[in-house]
């Protein structure tokens, strides 16, 4: 666990940490620029949907980022219940928040794509409904954490809820394989008639890499936030204890 803490929470005060962070941000910015260029100018025109199909590269990448973040959250939730180390709880909530952000990006790009492609913004088919339920479940996870004061109880209950919520994630993935949906059939691992043009596949990999790098950088910052929150709680306890100690000395002096 110290390894995860060190990996996700390197100090930025040292010049090495700051240089690494600046390097990672510049790399991410270059990747974002190149991914945008590739999706707009390198990817070939799709014969039925034309320009709007270019949303696909970032739409799929957002969902992949969401599945990755929520899988990390699932592992962290299980690890918290087994070990009770606070770092797992920090990683759990950080991953869920980043997962919700990726899910929001996936839903927005889906809606932007749906209107010109289907003529409607939204439909309650199996894929869209299970994805929406997943989004609501993880927002509930974040709301639940805000309602519980005791840190141990908050971590345990949210870990159990997080494990339960994750059951919907594989259902989202298989929904357009199990049922007929308005959402297009899977183009990757979708059987005989599926697959991507080789250039489209390369552009998808670039876009996927850019969204993943951004997701990981945001996750590192969000984990760092949780660690600082823990530090504030400890300092508040120390300040309260010192205040209580001086009050007790004062009352002894008065009596």
């Amino acid at each position, binding site marked *: 666990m110290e390894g995860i803490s060190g990996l996700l929470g390197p100090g930025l005060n040292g010049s090495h940490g700051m240089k690494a962070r600046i390097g990672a941000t510049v790399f991410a910015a270059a990747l*974002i620029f190149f991914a945008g260029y590739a999706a707009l100018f390198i990817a070939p025109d799709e014969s039925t949907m034309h320009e709007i199909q270019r949303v696909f590269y*970032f739409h799929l*990448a*957002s969902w992949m980022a969401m599945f990755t973040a929520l899988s990390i959250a699932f592992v962290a939730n299980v690890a918290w219940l087994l070990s009770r180390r606070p770092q797992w709880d920090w990683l759990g909530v950080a991953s869920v*928040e*980043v997962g919700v*952000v990726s899910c*929001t*990006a996936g839903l*927005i*790009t889906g809606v*932007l794509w749906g209107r010109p492609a289907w003529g409607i913004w939204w439909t309650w088919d199996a894929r869209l409904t299970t994805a929406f339920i997943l989004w609501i479940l993880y927002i509930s996870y974040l709301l639940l954490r805000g309602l519980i004061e005791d840190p141990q109880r908050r971590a345990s209950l949210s870990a159990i809820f997080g494990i339960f919520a994750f059951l919907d994630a594989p259902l989202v993935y298989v929904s357009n394989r199990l049922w007929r949906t308005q959402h297009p059939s899977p183009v990757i691992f979708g059987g005989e008639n599926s697959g991507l043009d080789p250039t489209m596949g390369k552009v998808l990999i670039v876009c996927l890499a850019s*969204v993943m790098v*951004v*997701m990981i950088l*945001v996750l590192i*910052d*969000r984990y*760092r*936030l949780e660690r*600082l*929150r823990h*530090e*504030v709680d400890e*300092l*508040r306890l*120390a*300040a309260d204890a*010192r205040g209580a100690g*001086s009050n007790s000395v004062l009352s002894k002096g008065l009596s």
Partner: protein
Amino acid sequence: MAVWAVFFAFELSVASRLGKLRGEIERLKQQLRDG
């Protein structure tokens, strides 16, 4: 663009919360030093 806008807005909120927490840590450390 929509994807980057969502991530950028989230990163801004994280940076803002980090800044507030760093300020709070400095305040509490000063409070403990002053006794």
